[in-house]
């Protein structure tokens, strides 16, 4: 009994610093931002209590809904782009030949680059005059497919999802490879003895074995996409004419460009609530899926 009491104390003390930091730097600002959301405040000077006006405005603001829609595009592109591609790559690149190692390195490379660098690289690729993409289309005699990739509000958001997906595949590849190498060899052997191979083995054995990791990956994906900011900020800044505005960039622009700290806070609060909802829904969906296997 004394041992477990001591252990409990030790756990408590060991956790205390990180819990304190978490409370101070994550939870407290969150509560502050909910609080500021009730005020009309320009960042300097007096603030004015305006009850729910900011929150009402958020729901009436067409740009907010557009930003949410754009965010959903990013979520969809990430969940249905990053996760499956990373999974397929992980299955293909399981062996450790030199070629596969090089490919793995290449896929992982964007992870170690700063988002600003990636943004600049893709900005040049999409450049209407000197961009390699339009050059390539010309060269392939597909000149009529040339677009102003980041300048046309109708397609700019989709153009932006490509670098976002490309950027983070490496992370999920790493997750899946770790999960695959953690599946016990006995299961493989058992499957072999039972005569399962190919697609059947993949769907009946391998995928269920790493389902937990896939679940985690999807949640990371959704959470990451909802707070996406850096690449879009670098490449378009939310423009043209709010065409690629995300919740985070819209919040940033409101807070730091036009100094509506209160309204920016209200947007963050609503974003937090939306993010929670998405995570909960995705959790529920994936849990049901698991039972089918």
């Amino acid at each position, binding site marked *: 009994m004394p041992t477990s009491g001591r252990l409990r104390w030790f756990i408590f003390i060991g956790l205390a610093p990180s819990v304190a930091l978490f409370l101070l730097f994550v939870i407290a600002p969150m509560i502050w931002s909910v609080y500021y959301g009730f005020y009309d405040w320009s960042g*300097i000077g007096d603030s004015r209590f305006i009850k729910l006006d900011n929150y009402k405005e958020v729901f009436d603001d067409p740009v907010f809904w557009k930003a949410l829609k754009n965010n959903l595009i990013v979520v969809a592109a990430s969940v249905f782009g990053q996760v499956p591609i990373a999974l397929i790559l992980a299955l293909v690149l399981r062996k450790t030949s030199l070629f596969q190692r090089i490919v793995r390195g290449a896929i992982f490379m964007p992870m170690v680059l700063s988002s600003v660098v990636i943004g600049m690289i893709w900005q040049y690729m999409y450049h209407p005059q000197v961009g390699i993409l339009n050059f390539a289309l010309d060269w392939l005699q597909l000149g009529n497919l040339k677009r102003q990739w980041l300048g046309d509000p109708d397609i700019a958001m989709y153009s932006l999802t490509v670098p976002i997906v490309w950027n983070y595949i490496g992370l999920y590849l790493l997750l899946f490879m770790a999960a695959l190498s953690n599946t016990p060899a006995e299961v493989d052997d058992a499957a072999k003895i039972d005569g399962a191979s190919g697609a059947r083995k993949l769907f009946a054995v391998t995928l269920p074995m790493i389902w937990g990791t896939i679940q985690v990956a999807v949640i990371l994906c959704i959470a990451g996409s909802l707070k996406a900011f850096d690449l879009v900020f670098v490449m378009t800044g939310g*423009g*043209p*004419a709010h065409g690629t505005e995300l919740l985070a960039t819209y919040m940033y622009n409101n807070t730091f460009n036009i*100094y509506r*700290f209160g309204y920016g806070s209200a947007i963050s609060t609503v974003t937090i609530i939306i993010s929670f909802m998405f995570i909960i829904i995705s959790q529920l969906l994936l849990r049901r899926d698991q039972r089918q296997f």
Partner: protein
Amino acid sequence: MKKILMLTLLLVIVIGAVTACGSNNKSGSETGTNTATASNTSNASEAPAEKVKLSFWHTWTGDDNLTKAYLKLIDQFQEDHPNITLDIQAMPQDAYKTRLKTAAAANEMPDVFLAWAGAMTKELVAGKAVRPLNDLLDSKPEWKNSFLANSFNDFTVDNQIYGIPTELTPTSLVYYNKSFFDQYGVKVPQTWDELKQAVEIFKKNNVIPIALGDKGSWLAQSCILSALADRVTGTEWFLNAAAQNGAKFTDPEFVKSLTYLQELAKIGAFQDGFISIDNVGQEQLYNQGKAAMFIEGAWAVTNLVTQSPKDILDATHVTILPAIPGGKGKANSTSGVVGAGPAISSNMDEAKKAAAYELVYALSGPEAQKMSVENNKLVSYKVDVPADKVSPLFAEVNQLVGTLEFSPVYDAALTSAGTDAVNNGLQELLLGGDPQKIAEKIQAAVAKSLGK
């Protein structure tokens, strides 16, 4: 039990160290090397009785000659004033503006800083973060009277002057490559129709008529619309609309000026993809000899002088946007602001204030103004341009500016939210949006931000 006690103690120390480090780091980086050198020099010379420590934030971080001249000026100031220790922080402009806002919000303003005329000054005054400089100006009448007319307008709130202009920035000048105009026999446009004809001819000959880079979204507003709309609406209407005082952005004259701007885009005056490149991109197109004109503020002169190939630089001349038939504004004018200037915090004692005044005068006095002009920077102060010290293009701009009247720039006169609405609205407009609807959005944003 002892062990646990020790462990707790250790943890407390570690956490203490971590948090202490955090705050130490902050002040450490703020103080930086500048303080060290400043205090060194002050130690070296005879130290007067009272020492004053001033914090000073500025944006001279570049590598150009004017920046270097300013830094030298500051060094000189420190040498001349051994009793004043400067705690300097230099930041690039965008970061600086955000940082200053944050400092104002936290009531931690530096003692002396650069403030921008117009919206920023108004916001700082509203936040009671700046202190008027009237008594400093009044104590040196010769200095005060050498500023050009209207110089202090954008630094003035309720008859109090909160900043001293150190630069004059016309935001809308048309830079053109004369060799293209000669080659295709085009007249430098004086009227709207001539501009349209010029666009037509250049397009036919595969020359970009006007290079445009509106990715940052401010360019079309600050460099084109501010001057263009003033031609149509007149200055008085704009100031009234900006204050929502009997004029609205949905008024027909403003919608008409939007239509003029859109007309340029519709007839193909700008190259494809103007929304994916920024002002550097438009200068690049011009420097590559692909474009006949581009429209930007006076700051582009420096870029052209340092970056243009010689043949293009030699062929480059400057004019203003053409007159618009039936417009209410003056044709011989363009938009301009007095830019940034030193200001001081509202929160300081008398000794500090005296020291701050010294610094403000050093940064914006006659010597500093002359220094700016010699380094190719326009000032709103009477200075003769030494012909041998500046580039021909700068001399040409300086001469042109002397003949013009200046109208307000949209982003200096509008609220931040209003500017944002105009910026985004113009992107939409240039991509083919409906001028009437865009005007409605701008009107709504401006009215809301003014609480009307």
